[in-house]
């Protein structure tokens, strides 16, 4: 059974941003809200939590003209050819994702890709996020 990251209980989110910050720590080795593969923001009375859906046939990868993004066997994508991203002006991968889960790293000029490590779920105090096997 594939292991996935799921926003299981968005209604329980308090907006503490712990997930966002521990994510940036895994990906970049420093803490940041901007340089993180996920986002949390106010939405009406509650919060919206945006993470990579871990698609089996990811639209972002299909949209990439340079094959910089490669689908992972368990879902989601991997950035295999980041050098190609530097020259990419249109960033079709960002547009292709209906969830708007991909964000752009404007320092390194490439998308910020979820590495499906599950650290965000580990530090969620309200089990908003679930990381594990899904049916």
């Amino acid at each position: 059974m594939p292991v996935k990251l799921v926003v299981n209980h968005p209604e329980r989110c308090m907006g503490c941003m712990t997930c966002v910050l521990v994510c940036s720590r895994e990906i970049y080795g420093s803490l940041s809200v901007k340089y993180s593969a996920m986002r949390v923001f106010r939405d009406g009375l509650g919060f919206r939590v945006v993470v990579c859906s871990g698609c089996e046939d990811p639209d972002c990868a299909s949209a990439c003209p340079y094959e910089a993004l490669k689908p992972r066997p368990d879902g989601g994508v991997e950035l295999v050819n980041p050098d190609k991203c530097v020259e990419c002006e249109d960033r079709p991968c960002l547009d292709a994702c209906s969830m708007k889960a991909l964000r752009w790293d404007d320092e390194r000029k490439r998308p910020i890709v979820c590495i499906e490590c599950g650290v965000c779920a580990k530090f969620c105090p309200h089990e908003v996020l679930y990381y594990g096997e899904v049916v």
Partner: protein
Amino acid sequence: MMGDILFVSLTEGMSWVENRRELIEEYIGGSGLAINLLHELCPEGVDPFSPENPIILAPGPFIGLYPVCSKTIAMFKSPLTGNLGESHAGGGLGAALRFAGYDALVVLGASPKPVWLDIRGDGEVGFKGSSSVQGMSAVETVAVLKEPEPDGLQSVVAVGPAGEKFVYYANAVVDGYNFFGRTGLGAVMGAKNLKAIRVTGCGRIGVEDLDGYKSLFERIYEEVVKTGKMRKYHDLGTPQNVLTLNSIKALPTRNFKSGFFEHAEKISGEYFADNLLIRKNPCPLCPIGCKHVAMLRGFFADEHEVEVVEAGYDYEPVYALGSNLGIDDPAGVLKLCLLCDSYGLDAMMTGTMLAWATEAYERNLVGLEETLVEPRWGDADGYVEMVKHIVDMPNEFYVSMAQGRAYRGLGEDFLMTIGGVGLAGYHTGLAFVVGTAIGARHSHVSNAGYSLDQRHLGEPLDPVKTVETLVEEETWRCILESCGVCLFARRVYDINLVAEALAKLGLRRSVEELKETGRRIYALKYRFKFREGFGLKNLKIPARLFETPSANGRIEPDDVKKALEVAEHRIKELVERYAPAV
């Protein structure tokens, strides 16, 4: 870079960055950094409303890195106390400043026109005209200025009409639910023509020892979430105190005439949580969410025409705008809380003034021509009208109310302030009174006298030992607030943990050295207070505190007098030793 401080001159419409790494290395950050900058930047004897009064906002270095660390320290000269203006606020401001790359923001001068500041951490500061949001509620201003999907961690601090009109205890509202309260930061912002500050932290915070930091983070997180050390704040939040204090007869009721409120159940943390709670609102990196938010639902016309608003509530506002005004209607309390938040008024001080006015009216010291509305214990709607008058100041009586003073010096014995600041809701005994008097910012949390009283229920406290304990506690808290630790997490962040957490950031010092740093920060605060004319000898303690029996029985005036004498001596000794004048 560590030690970068953003300076903004409102007078000149300019900004620049100065690096003061040496101050971080010596004084950590937060209040340690802020008090040093205040000494440098605030001229002696300055009028708090003059452009020369600086505003310093300093988040400690734990913010954005460790769980439950979020407090930004504001320092300025206070219009309410006439000396050290110090106030601590949670919310996202500290993290936003840190992610923007700054260890402090200093606002100097005054703007010729109303403005708000847009800070993005790229070295540029936007000076934006605020004509369209002038007069707007502080809470609404925050909502208007916040971007729906900001490109980083964003925080807005704003003043409401109370700040714009220089109410001496106007606060500054952070992100809608947190406050720089008590000593009038809102009025100082108002005097600078500064309606709001928006900070968007788009950068990163790096750590020297990343792996060591990560495992320490996990240890702290587990302790916060899985042990009972912070349960109270997560479960009912601070309003848990309502029934706890009422059971020991320490819940100030009807202007401290009693420590027992017969209807406490109706405005208890339990009642609010069971019936009205809709959300808990945490600061960044805090899994607790102590800020409890209630739903206030009402009908404005027939046919179930419904209106719903949110109101944050905490123990202190519930005491100040509830039991201390004899209000037993939870919706009435919430309405007053929301009104204070919207106007940008310190809820505690507002309650103090309303309670004083009610008693002054009851005793015929003032009449309807002054109060304009008949103040009556328990009448929330009447108090709503009075709060509006505090901000509008239609007559001399309300001008005096807005300055936190007893009108024409009447009824000072029952104006429940010490050092100009309205008392917190703990009639617990000697240590609370002495602690509030000697706390550098006259806050109950400066040194937690109320907690000392509660730990020694029924045992008379020795005035001399009480002073020693309180001063020791406050010097330690100076370290916590310099790091950015929320005081609600004080049971988690003991001195060894703080030393360990600092070391991961490259700020190594022994436990003894840390204690020493705490004493120096404390001494610097007091040096500022003494410089501005503060003295403990002539400090007025309202007689009511001695009349109404506390949880520990009647407080003896002689014990307080003795304690203040000892404290004056002890604090002067500390100032001479740890912060001698240059």
